[in-house]
């Protein structure tokens, strides 16, 4: 549980580390020399007021800023020691290794099965149909969606409820066996009950994956995150154990945010 001291072992290498990353949209600088580390099997929350650059920073971690016209990223992002922005790196491969779940559920207008199978199919992760079916089942099991959809795998992914669609998108991301899963406010389009299910799921997934989750909701960060980073106006103001950030913030800005002076 959050705050509970999980032994990351000070010697273990970080899963991902962000070093001096700047992001510009044309002239506008949305992220300013960000530094951040993601440890293995932890949930890291990116928290901050709306427009502070949380999503932009998150997109740096799987090169999803690249397709945005006018976006420019400088600095280093190391995935297990290798810079994902190095010249010869294929962004498609980075994105396969670093899965991502969007704010609003965006299943393909295809069957539930085809949604999950999309990644394995484009990467050729399976030998035969049976293995593909196994990957699909495991991915759905992992998010607890299997029991709800196992009899209607041929129905449209878009016919599910909002919360189910979001879990479908998470299943779709983990069907690629990623090293990291990025989530950008995954519950902001959902009702409280579905949100609670997703939060629980995030905790469970943390047993196998690193998760970086963006949230503007302080309670959510406290519920799901091992560590929390506070961003303000494009800068990473403060990073630490979630309990420490909430109980003993070091920075004035963090205190103001937690005190509800802005949001």
């Amino acid at each position, binding site marked *: 549980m959050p705050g509970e001291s999980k032994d990351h072992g000070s010697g273990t290498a970080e899963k991902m580390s962000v070093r001096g990353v700047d992001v510009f949209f044309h002239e506008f600088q949305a992220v300013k020399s960000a530094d951040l580390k993601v440890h293995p099997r932890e949930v890291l929350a990116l928290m901050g007021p709306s427009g502070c650059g949380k999503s932009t920073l998150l997109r740096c971690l799987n090169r999803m800023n690249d397709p945005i016209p006018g976006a420019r990223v400088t600095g280093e992002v190391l995935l297990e020691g290798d810079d994902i922005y190095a010249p010869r790196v294929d962004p*498609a491969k980075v994105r396969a*290794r670093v899965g991502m779940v969007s704010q609003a559920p*965006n299943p*393909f*207008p295809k069957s539930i099965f085809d949604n999950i199978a999309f990644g394995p199919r*484009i990467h050729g992760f399976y030998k035969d149909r049976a293995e593909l079916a196994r990957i699909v089942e495991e991915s759905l099991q992992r998010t607890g969606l299997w029991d709800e959809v196992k009899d209607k795998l041929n129905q449209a992914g878009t*016919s599910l409820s909002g919360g189910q669609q979001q879990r479908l998108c998470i299943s779709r*991301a983990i069907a*690629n066996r990623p090293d990291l899963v990025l989530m950008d406010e995954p519950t902001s389009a959902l009702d409280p009950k579905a949100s609670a299910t997703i939060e629980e799921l995030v905790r469970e997934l943390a047993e196998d994956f690193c998760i970086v989750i963006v949230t503007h909701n302080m309670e959510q960060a406290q519920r799901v995150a091992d560590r929390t980073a506070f961003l303000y106006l494009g800068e990473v103001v403060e990073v630490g154990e979630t309990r420490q950030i909430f109980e003993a913030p070091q920075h004035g800005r963090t205190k103001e945010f937690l005190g509800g002076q802005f949001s």
Partner: protein
Amino acid sequence: MSEIDQTTGSLYTTQRFDRRMARRRRRQSRLKWISGSGIVLAVTALLVLLGSIAWLGWSGFQQVQVGLPMDFSSGELQPQEGKSPAAAVEDANFRALVSDAVTRVLGDPQDRQAERARDALLSTSAAREVGRKLLASPDWLGRGRVVVWVPAGDEVGQIVKGRAPRDVPASDRLLSDRQLAWIDRLQAEGLLRTAFNWDFFTRTASREPEIVGIKAAVVGSVLMLLTTFAVAIPLGVAAAIYLEEFAPKTRLMELVDLNIRNLAAVPSIVMGLLGLALFIRFAELPRSSILVGGLTLALMTLPIIIIAARAAIAAVPDSLRTAALQLGASKMQVTARVVLPNAMPGILTGTIIGLAQALGETAPLLMIGMVAFIPDTPAGLSDPAAPLPVQIYLWSTSPERAFMEKTAAAILVLLAIMVCLNALAVFLRNRLQKRW
């Protein structure tokens, strides 16, 4: 504020507010009436159009035929050694046989003039028709007397179908009193009938309106449209994909975009000129050929397909592209697996409507010489052809009254094909969309 009701203090209880509401309601109902009558007007115009063409054209699907009592047991047609039945039919003088048969019914013509007047009762193709029918049913040879039905002459057909007036002074009609009497005589003997005009679908262009058909024209149109399909769809969809998914948003691309939109509005006859210059003068492809016609129509359809496909591609939500990218798809995979399948219904609809338009096009085909009298059904892409709209145009300029109903009947066929194409577009769209 003077608008506030002094007693209730509300904006909504003043007379002025009520008056304004009433005016708003009146305006709304007026708009409803205007737009409603627009629809009524359009539907009426369509019905009048269809009704008048159907009224002009229905008799084109009928053929008036004369029954000839004939006897094929005469010597020259009987099996002979060293002569095939086909050769015997080939050599037989059917003109004389037909003439004999008519004499048997209507009596001996007294002079040359009367003989010619009598011949005009039958289609000039009558003798050939008899030969053709005999080949098809050789058992007539030993049967003695059989009644062979052959097309009547075009004016006889018009009179019998009621298309040409009968009760007018002889100087105002093409048939003489004597000929009319013969028609009555044939009718009385049961040797005149009106049958379904199969010739209209199985035969080709001819000088004789009573036996013309649209087969060559339809085959020509279909082959030409297939050529257009094969060229315009891959090119158009590829161009649309490039412009929507890959092209950088530069000044040059804006210019290209503007030009494509303008190209879609270029009068089709100008496209015909372009086709003439490009395919006949420059590439030296055969004049009047189906290939050149199809390519010219492809030039015309290309901008329409590009615009429709671009609209369909642009309508695919970006969230789907993002989802595919997030899963590690390459740009190509995003396009092939997400964008195209989702844009397909729109692309197909636009494409089929573009092709339906190409099907009805005449002007550009005139420019590339596809306006000749062509009695042979085309067999390949380099054969000359007169496609259906051109055939309609040619018939509409023919002087014989009987061509009028053929023109209208051919228009009905063309409209039927168009309706089918459009129905196909709707079907495909629903079919592809309903899956999810």
